[in-house]
């Protein structure tokens, strides 16, 4: 039985009841600045609720991409790891698999992300710091030694040089006896968000888009179980965006990749089922849940109506979630355990397919093993003890959550319109539009915290002073020289003629815009060319990128 209030009821209640007591002095808006009403009622639901949310596994997928969701299978618990050398990270991977983790996720170090070999002068001090150093095929093989690549799914967080890392991975698997069509996993490859937020690039925007499209095309033929791109809002949010900006820029990036692949002549249904997404789970609980629900609905509609997808699988917005690093505080670090648990719960109630929970010590350093285990246990407690996985989309139909879902969708379309006016996302990125919007939002939030309008526990409320009493993971600086030796050894022992020939062929192919570069990268990998050599070879043709900074 509906309890739709009769017209005027809310006004009466507001006047007679609600306004009788003064409100607390608090912002009553989401962390993104979206004002929130004191009460939501049936009047806040969409006109046609059934059409707006549908049923799980059915258009528009608001309630979930699969019919059974967590009744069928829990989300994949996928902790991101990587530091030091490939051997060291391989140990952490096997530790995580032993503790019940079900997928692997690789963090690369900054030089690897920027396409520099470990012995490049700019790599000094950065090797193995924020992730694992991978310069060569040999490193990739060490990273996955004794891990059966046909059994685990592997995620690799790398973008500008993604096609090179994928080539390393494919050849490493080949040498384990696993063919590329049996490999399951994801490589991030989302270069647009690099220019927008994460800022690890190798080439100017246009050739970078060509490389991404080359990879998508190659994977659509050779890697049916692989996700060649993970369209990522995570870093956009970490750079300080609002939830609406994360949603809008991420989906627009995704639609732009689809547009480019379709323009190359690919059938949308040949690759769209393999696109996946990656979102942040920030601390504003309901706003996050609404964001995921809105994302599914927008993606399904746009891929169907704008690109004419007919395969249902093309419409499914599957996503990975990571709790918000930016919400963690260096002060009273144990509080981060609580933040992470709440954020993880939002990801789960939002219907995520996989989840990374941050460790409480990550505002201070890379996590210790103990902190990583606690983060994984947090997910296991949500899955096994809380009962939230018993039913699908438990918040579906909530007046508040549905209203917020609609509102985020509306804001996303407002941004789409602005981006289209600028000539599309590639143009908007070149002009710094999303970059500026994010910088403004980040500054506004910082001001709100500093003015005390927004409270952050342990930072501007309930602060205690000395907070830095926690054990930190220290990266042994000896890793760096060891890694430098490794890459030099590879260069010294390989067949130099073969390596030179493969790089020359890569350079020649890069000059022909219609050549797909993936096969040439695979050849260069087999000839043991290093990552840095391949990047520099391509830079001779493509050039490099320099940002015009806006603040």
């Amino acid at each position, binding site marked *: 039985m509906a309890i739709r209030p009769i017209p005027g009821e809310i006004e009466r209640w507001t006047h007679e009841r609600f306004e009788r007591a003064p409100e607390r002095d608090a912002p009553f808006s989401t962390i993104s600045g979206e004002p929130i009403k004191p009460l939501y009622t049936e009047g806040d639901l969409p006109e046609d609720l059934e059409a707006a949310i549908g049923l799980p596994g059915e258009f528009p997928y608001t309630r979930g991409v699969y019919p059974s969701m967590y009744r069928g299978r829990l989300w994949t618990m996928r902790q991101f790891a990587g530091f030091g050398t490939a051997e060291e990270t391989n140990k952490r991977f096997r530790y995580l698999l032993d503790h019940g983790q079900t997928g692997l996720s690789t963090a690369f170090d900054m030089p690897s992300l*920027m396409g520099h070999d470990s012995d490049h002068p700019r790599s000094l001090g*950065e090797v193995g710091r924020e992730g694992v150093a991978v310069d060569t095929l040999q490193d990739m093989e060490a990273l996955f030694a004794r891990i059966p690549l046909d059994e685990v799914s592997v995620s690799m967080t790398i973008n500008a040089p993604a096609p090179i890392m994928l080539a390393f991975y494919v050849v490493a698997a080949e040498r384990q006896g696993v063919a590329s069509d049996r490999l399951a996993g994801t490589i991030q490859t989302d270069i647009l968000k690099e220019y927008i937020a994460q*800022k690890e690039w190798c080439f100017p925007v246009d050739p970078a888009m060509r490389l991404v499209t080359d990879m998508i095309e190659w994977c659509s033929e050779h890697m049916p179980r692989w996700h060649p791109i993970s369209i990522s809002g995570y870093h956009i949010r970490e750079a*300080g965006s609002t939830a609406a900006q994360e949603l809008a820029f991420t989906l627009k990036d995704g639609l732009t990749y689809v547009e480019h692949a379709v323009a190359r002549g690919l059938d949308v249904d040949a690759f769209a089922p393999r696109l996946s997404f990656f979102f942040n789970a920030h601390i504003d609980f309901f706003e996050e849940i609404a964001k995921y629900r809105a994302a599914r609905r927008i993606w399904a509609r746009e891929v169907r109506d704008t690109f004419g997808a007919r395969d249902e699988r093309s419409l499914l917005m599957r996503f990975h979630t990571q709790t918000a690093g930016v919400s963690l505080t260096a002060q009273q670090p144990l509080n981060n355990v609580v933040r992470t648990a709440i954020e993880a719960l939002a990801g789960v109630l939002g219907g995520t397919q996989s989840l990374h929970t941050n460790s409480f010590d990550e505002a201070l350093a890379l996590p210790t093993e103990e902190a990583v285990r606690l983060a994984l246990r947090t997910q296991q407690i949500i899955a096994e003890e809380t009962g939230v996985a018993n039913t699908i989309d438990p918040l579906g139909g909530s007046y508040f959550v549905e209203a917020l879902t609609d509102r985020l969708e509306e804001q996303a379309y407002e941004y789409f319109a602005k981006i289209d006016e600028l000539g599309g996302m590639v143009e908007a990125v070149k002009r710094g539009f999303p970059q500026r919007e994010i910088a403004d939002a980040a500054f506004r939030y910082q001001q709100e915290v*500093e003015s005390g309008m927004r409270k952050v526990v342990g930072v501007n409320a309930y602060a205690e002073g000395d907070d830095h009493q926690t054990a930190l993971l220290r990266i042994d600086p000896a890793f760096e020289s060891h890694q430098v030796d490794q890459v030099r050894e590879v260069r010294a022992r390989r067949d130099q003629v073969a390596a030179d020939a493969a790089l020359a062929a890569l350079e020649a192919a890069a000059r022909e815009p219609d050549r797909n570069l993936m096969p040439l990268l695979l050849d260069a990998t087999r000839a043991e060319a290093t990552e840095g050599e391949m990047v520099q070879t391509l830079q001779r043709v493509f050039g490099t990128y320099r940002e015009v900074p806006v*603040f």
Partner: protein
Amino acid sequence: MSNSSEKKIRVVVAKPGLDGHDRGAKIIARALRDAGMEVIYTGLHQTPEQIVETVIQEDADAVGLSILSGAHMTLVPRIMELLKAQGIDDVVVTVGGTIPDDDVQELKTLGVAEVFTPGAPTQQAIDFIRSAVRA
């Protein structure tokens, strides 16, 4: 606000190293600018040599280094060394980022005036730079 007869403080905000985490650098750059300082933001991925060059070119009173990659114990000493080699001893050097306590002490020994860790309000940096430059 600064007295209009006073010369504006010139601050270089720099991102040494390869990490792309520029939220903090941009926020601090804008806050210092709003506080009446002349701010030169280098942009990302700067080498120590490039940063010292900018400090000289811009005749800066202070330089704020933002590092979140964990490479601070390589990059900051190198910058301090280059500044010294150029005979520059009157530029206030501050560091912001995820810097463990032990490293904070070591950086200060090298001549870094102050280190701001996560959660530090921008006003603290503004006040510090203002008083350190005027001192």
